[in-house]
C-alpha cells in the first residue's frame, strides 16, 4: 500500500510539471492571439465585425472557463451560469452609472466595477450554493436552472431610483418609487439599465482572461483543488479521509460564480443597454456556455477557450448564408458533438493518430 502511494506521489509530481507546462501553453496561446490581433488592429487589417467581436469573445471565454471549473473540476452540472453573469452585469452597471460623475477616472471606476461584480456574484454564488450543493446530478442541474430563471425574473421586476432622499426600490413600476422630481431612475424593470459607460476594451478583456485562467489553474493544482477533484471522483472516499465536502464544493462553486460575474461586468460595459432577456441571461445562454465547455472538453481549460472563440465566431461568419444561418449552425453543432464524442469516431481518430505516429517514427 505504502509503496503504491509512494509511486503515485512520484507520478503525481511528474504530472504536475507536465501540467504546469500545459498551463503555460494556454497562457502563451492567449498572449500570442492578443499580439496578433493587436498587430492587425494597428495596421488596420481587422474588419469592423471582428473588432466589435473582440470584447464579446473575451466575455464568453471567461464564462466558458469559469463554468468549466464547476462542470469539469467540481463535476457538477450547472445550468444557471448566466444567472451569475446577470448579477455581475447589473451590479457593476448600476455602480458605474450611479457613480459616473463621482469617479472621473474611467480605469479606476471600471476596476472597482469589476470588483463589485465579482463580489456580488460570489455572494449570490454562496446563497445559491448552500441549497444547491446538497443535491446531486440532474436534480442539481435543474435547481441551478431554476435559480438562473429566478434571478432573471426578479431583475426584470426591479425598479430602482435615486433622489435627494436616497435610494428607492420597487417591484411594481416606476410610479411607485415615489421619486422627487429631480430623482433619476437607474433600473427600469424590463427596460433595464441604459447609459452604462463604454469602459470595456480588448486589452482589459484579455487581462481578465489571463487572470481567470491563472486563478483556476492555481486552484486546480493547490491542495484545495485536489480536494475538490477527489470529491468529484469519489465523494464517499473523499469524505472518509476527512475532506470537508461542503466547504470545498462551496469554494469551487463560489469562485466559478464570481468569475462569471466578472464576465458580466465586461459584457455590460460593452453595450449601452442592459436588459435581462431570455436571450442573453436566460437558460439559453447558460446552455450556450455549457456547449463551449462540453465541446472544448470537460475539465480542459484550453479547450474551453478555443471552443468559446469558435462557436461565438461561427454564427457571425455564417451571416452570408442569410436565412439558413442558424440552421447550418445547429447542424454544425450536432455534427461536432457526434464527431467529438461518438465512440466510433473516437476509435477512428485514435487509429488515425496511431498511424500518424507510426509514419512519423518511420520518417525519423
Amino acid at each position, binding site marked *: 500500500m505504502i509503496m503504491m502511494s509512494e509511486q503515485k506521489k512520484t507520478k503525481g509530481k511528474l504530472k504536475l510539471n507536465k501540467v504546469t507546462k500545459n498551463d503555460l501553453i494556454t497562457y502563451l496561446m492567449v498572449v500570442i492571439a492578443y499580439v496578433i490581433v493587436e498587430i492587425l488592429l494597428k495596421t488596420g487589417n481587422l474588419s469592423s465585425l471582428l473588432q466589435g467581436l473582440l470584447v464579446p469573445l473575451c466575455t464568453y471565454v471567461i464564462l466558458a472557463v469559469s463554468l468549466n471549473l464547476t462542470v469539469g473540476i467540481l463535476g457538477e452540472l450547472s445550468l444557471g451560469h448566466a444567472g451569475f453573469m446577470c448579477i455581475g452585469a447589473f451590479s457593476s452597471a448600476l455602480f458605474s452609472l450611479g457613480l459616473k460623475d463621482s469617479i472621473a477616472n474611467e480605469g479606476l471606476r471600471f476596476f472597482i466595477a469589476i470588483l463589485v461584480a465579482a463580489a456580488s456574484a460570489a455572494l449570490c454564488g454562496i446563497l445559491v450554493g448552500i441549497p444547491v450543493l446538497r443535491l446531486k446530478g440532474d436534480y442539481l442541474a435543474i435547481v441551478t436552472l431554476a435559480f438562473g430563471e429566478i434571478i432573471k425574473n426578479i431583475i426584470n421586476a426591479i425598479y430602482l431610483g435615486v433622489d435627494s432622499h436616497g435610494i428607492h426600490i420597487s417591484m411594481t413600476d416606476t410610479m411607485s418609487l415615489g421619486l422627487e422630481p429631480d430623482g433619476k431612475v437607474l433600473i427600469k*424593470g424590463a427596460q433595464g439599465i441604459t447609459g452604462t459607460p463604454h469602459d470595456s476594451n480588448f486589452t482589459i478583456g484579455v487581462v481578465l482572461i489571463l487572470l481567470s485562467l491563472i486563478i483556476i489553474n492555481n486552484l486546480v493544482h493547490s491542495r484545495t483543488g485536489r480536494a475538490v477533484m477527489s470529491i468529484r471522483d469519489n465523494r464517499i472516499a473523499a469524505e472518509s479521509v476527512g475532506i470537508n465536502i461542503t466547504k470545498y464544493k462551496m469554494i469551487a462553486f463560489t469562485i466559478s460564480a464570481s468569475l462569471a460575474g466578472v464576465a458580466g461586468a465586461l459584457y455590460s460595459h460593452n453595450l449601452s*443597454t442592459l436588459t435581462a432577456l431570455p436571450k442573453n441571461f436566460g437558460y439559453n445562454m447558460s446552455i450556450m456556455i455549457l456547449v463551449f465547455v462540453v465541446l472544448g472538453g470537460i475539465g480542459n481549460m484550453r479547450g474551453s477557450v478555443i471552443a468559446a472563440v469558435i462557436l461565438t465566431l461561427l454564427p457571425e461568419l455564417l*451571416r452570408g448564408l442569410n436565412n439558413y444561418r442558424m440552421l447550418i449552425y445547429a447542424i454544425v453543432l450536432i455534427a461536432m458533438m457526434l464527431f467529438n464524442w461518438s465512440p466510433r469516431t473516437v476509435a477512428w*481518430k485514435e487509429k488515425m493518430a496511431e498511424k500518424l505516429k507510426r509514419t512519423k517514427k518511420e520518417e525519423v
Partner: protein
Amino acid sequence: MKMKKLVSLLMVAALSASMLTGCGSSNDAAGSSDAATDTTAEGTENAAGGTLKIGGIGPLTGAAAVYGTAVANAAQLAVDEVNAAGGVNGMQLELNFQDDECDAEKSVNAYNTLKDWGMQMLVGSVTSGCSIAVSEYTKDDNMFQLTPSGSAVECVQYDNAFRVCFSDPNQGLASAQYIGENNLATKVAVIYDSSDIYSSGIYEKFAAEAANQPFEIVSAEAFTADNKTDFSVQLQKAKDAGADLVFLPIYYTEASLILSQADKMGYAPQFFGCDGLDGILNVENFDTSLAENVMLLTPFAADATDDLTVNFVKNYKDKFNGETPNQFAADTYDAIYAIKAAAEKAGITADMSVSDICEAMKAAMTEITVNGLTGTITWSADGEPTKEPKAVKIVNGSYTAM
C-alpha cells in the same frame, strides 16, 4: 488516455485552423465583393450617380422574428420601387439586411458587419433595446440612423438618430387622453408585458396620465416573455374588478390569445390597444369575429382605401407569399421614402463620406414632409416624428375610422 487527449487537441487545433482559414477566406470574400461593388459603382457612376448603400438590422430568427421579417420585406419592397422609378438623385439604392436575433450584442455585430460592407445609412434596429445599443455606435461613427420601430425614448437620444413610429410615452398619453375624452369607460384594466420595453413604456405613461382623466385603473396585471400563453388569471382579475375596458398595450400575437381566452370565459369588455395591435386581423386562420369592436390607435390600416395603401398592400402580398403587411412594414416603407426625400433635399451623392451624409441628412430631415402610409409625417431635430394617430374600431372584420 493520453493519446486520446492529444488527438482531441489535434482535432480542436485542426478545427480552429479550418475556422481561421474559413474566417480569412470569408473576409477576403467580403473584401472582394466590396471591391466588386465598388467597381460596378464606379462603372455606373458615369452613367448614373452610383449606388447608395443602406443597411438594415432586425430580428430575422428568434421569437421576435415576425417583426424583423416584416421590416426586411418592406424595406426591400420600397428600395426596389425607388430604384425602378429612377432611384435617388440618379443613384440606385442597395439594401443589406442583417439578423440580430433581438439581442443587443448581436445587433452591434450586425452593425459592424454592415460597416464592413460599406453601409452609408442605417435603417434599424427594429426593436428598442437593440436600437439604443446600436445608436451608441452610430453616434461615434456619425452614421445617419433612422429606426422604423424603435419606440423607447432613448432610441433617438443622439441627434443622428430619427424614428418613424411614435414614441412609447406618446402612445400611452394619447391612449389615456382618447379614452378619457370620449368617455369610453370609467373602470379600466390593463394587461401588459412587463418584460417588453415597448409595452411597459406605454403602460407607465398611461398609468401616469390616468390620474388626470375621468377613469380609474382598477387592475393592472403583467405577464412576461416566459409566460405568455395563459392569460386566464389576468382576465379573471379584470373581470372581478368590474373593468368595462381592457387596455392592451401589447403586440397582436399575445392579443389574439387574450381575445380568444376572454371569449372562452364569457368576458366581453371593450378592448383598446395601440399600434402593436395592428396586424391582429391578419393572423393566419384567426377568427376575426373575436376582434369585433376592438379599438386601436394606429397610424396605419392595411385595408385603408387610399391608393398608396392599396398599392403597397397589393405589392407586398404579391411579393411575399400573400402575407399582409403590418404596422412595422408600413413604418419601414415610410422610412425608405423619408430617406429618399431627405437625400434628394440634401443633394446626397454616393461618393460622400458617411459623416458628411449624416450631417446633410440631419438638416434635411427636419425640412421634409412625407406623405406616407402612416400619415403625413414631419420630423423635429430631436428625431421625433409628428403624425396623427388614427383611432379605428374593428367592425365586420375590418377597420372603421372613429
